[in-house]
């Protein structure tokens, strides 16, 4: 869990413990102030981050408390923030003192062994707590022994003790299972509402496209054909009028077909239906104006809706690459680990991609978030740009 050579670990553990002593004393001194929920939260989060760093455990961020007054007191995590105050005061001071004693006596021995004679006879330094050093023999034997023992103690014990303190911190401040569940439900409720909104908007758009476009065109064609049939029996027959009607009707059918094709493409890309995600992404990357490499694992079965989201997201991202990035190469990597589908899109372009500039990234984010996925965009000015999407793809 903790990396580095043993002495590095011991050093980190020692500084952590001495730091804990300081924060433990600070907690005691500032106790009345820290009982305020918002300050307690910040204080607790700072400790939790510090413990996470020592243990090298990635932690889900704990929210900062923004609410005031009674609602702050009613926050489910507030009791734990407050509990952390005495726990930190006691464990931090106790374990920190242990480290301080060890370090202090090491320094005493280090000073006493060569310099015992420089102290006044009634004020000679003492080793092993209470043995005064009065000659070189005791100075060397006891001094070396004390340095050896305490160094061994620090070497062996600092790292595990520091880790124990860090674990206590994480235990006190981590979410309970019930709270994690509550958080999850809150997230899912929100994304589900987004999905329903997006779905509804999509249905309305399709309905509008078909109603205003294709259906209206078919009506116009039918009317022209009806007029043409009547005109057939006119005497004399107006050939030019008939010709015009039929030509308009014919052109109308072609326009209707073009519109219908666009609607179909926007509902579910035909290439995806034909060839699945691998085939569809192959087509999309081949079509990209910037040379694009596609690496795609065997994905097994992925729900059609997720496939469509990935397809549209990759197509959108590659459109951005071709339009804005000035990249000369790009890459798309799709892989699956258990029930998570991961899509990484990279380009060697100018970077600076931003949700607020244009709608491309925002659209990608909306599509992916709708499936409870995540989108990370790393695009420093000057490039390169990396977009990482993850979507759950379990059944």
């Amino acid at each position, binding site marked *: 869990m903790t990396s580095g050579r043993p002495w590095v670990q011991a050093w980190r553990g020692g500084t952590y413990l001495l730091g804990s002593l300081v924060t433990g004393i600070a907690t005691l001194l500032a106790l009345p102030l820290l009982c305020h929920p918002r300050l307690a939260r910040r204080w607790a989060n700072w400790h939790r981050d510090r413990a996470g760093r020592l243990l090298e455990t990635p932690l889900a961020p704990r929210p900062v408390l923004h609410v005031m007054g009674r609602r702050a007191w009613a926050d489910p995590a507030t009791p734990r923030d407050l509990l952390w105050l005495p726990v930190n005061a006691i464990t931090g001071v106790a374990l920190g003192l242990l480290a301080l004693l060890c370090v202090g006596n090491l320094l005493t021995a280090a000073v006493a062994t060569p310099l015992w004679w420089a102290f006044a006879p009634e004020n000679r330094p003492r080793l092993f707590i209470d043995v005064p050093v009065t000659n070189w023999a005791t100075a060397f034997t006891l001094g070396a022994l004390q340095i050896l023992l305490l160094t061994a103690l620090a070497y062996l014990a600092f790292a595990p003790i520091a880790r124990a303190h860090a674990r206590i911190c994480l235990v006190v401040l981590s979410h309970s299972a019930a709270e994690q569940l509550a958080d999850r439900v809150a997230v899912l409720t929100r994304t589900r509402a987004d999905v329903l909104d997006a779905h509804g908007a999509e249905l309305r758009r399709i309905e509008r496209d078909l109603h205003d476009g294709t259906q209206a065109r078919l009506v116009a064609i039918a009317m022209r054909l009806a007029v043409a049939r009547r005109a057939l029996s006119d005497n004399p027959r107006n050939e030019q009028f008939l010709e015009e009607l039929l030509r308009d009707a014919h052109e109308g059918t072609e326009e209707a077909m073009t519109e219908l094709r666009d609607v179909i493409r926007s509902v579910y890309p*035909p*290439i995806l239906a034909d060839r699945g995600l691998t085939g569809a992404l192959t087509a999309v990357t081949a079509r990209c104006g910037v040379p694009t490499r596609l690496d795609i694992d065997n994905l097994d079965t992925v729900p059609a809706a997720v496939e469509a989201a990935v397809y549209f997201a990759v197509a959108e991202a590659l459109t951005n690459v071709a339009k804005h990035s000035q990249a000369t190469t790009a890459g798309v990597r799709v892989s699956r680990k258990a029930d998570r589908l991961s899509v990484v899109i990279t380009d060697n372009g100018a970077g600076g991609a931003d949700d607020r500039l244009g709608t491309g990234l925002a659209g990608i984010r909306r599509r992916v978030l709708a499936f409870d996925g995540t989108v990370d965009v790393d695009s420093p000015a000057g490039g390169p740009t990396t977009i990482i999407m993850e979507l759950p793809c379990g059944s």
Partner: protein
Amino acid sequence: MRVVIAEDNVLLATGLELLLNSVGFHIAAIAGDAAGFLTAVRDHRPDVTIVDVRLPPSFRDEGIRAALQARREHPGLPVLVLSQYVEQQYAAELLATTGGGVGYLLKDRVSRVDEFVDALRRVAAGGTAMDTEVIAQLLANRSDPIAVLTPREREVLALMAQGHDNNTIADRLVITDNAVHKHIGNIFNKLGLAVTDSGHRRVLAVLTYLNGAGQIDGD
């Protein structure tokens, strides 16, 4: 000219039959699926075939695969693929088979009878017929090198890529054969392509250029 059609939709199949009969083609067989199509091709040895991309049982890309299979079995068998939508990937796969005589058109084009029949005859004669949509997709994605072409040269390039010969290009653009010849020379120069004779090889060179430049082959 004898035609074998692979089309499962009865409405469209009878429509095609009606249309082709009216302009003097003979429909040797209409198959409803890929296996039936391959059998009909073996039995009838048609002069040209028309294949719908989506066929039973799964209505995915069975038609493309049947067309490729038929061309493997009968090298140079003229195949015109019809589809409700255009996917340049399919065009690339068809063109990758050896020999000429391939076409890939939107189904909508059938209603322009003269142009459709012209395309079908071109394919039957070993030429190429690529939908304007395919070419438009290719041109849209290859902005950089294409930018050096003049608008007129781009028009000539598009018509050339669709599979038209110099005469037709001259007619369509209302210019002389000589002018077409000059434009084509300029295009090949600017794009750094070796000049090839007219016909399928020229189409292939242009399409390969348009298609290939935007792609790195993964392994």
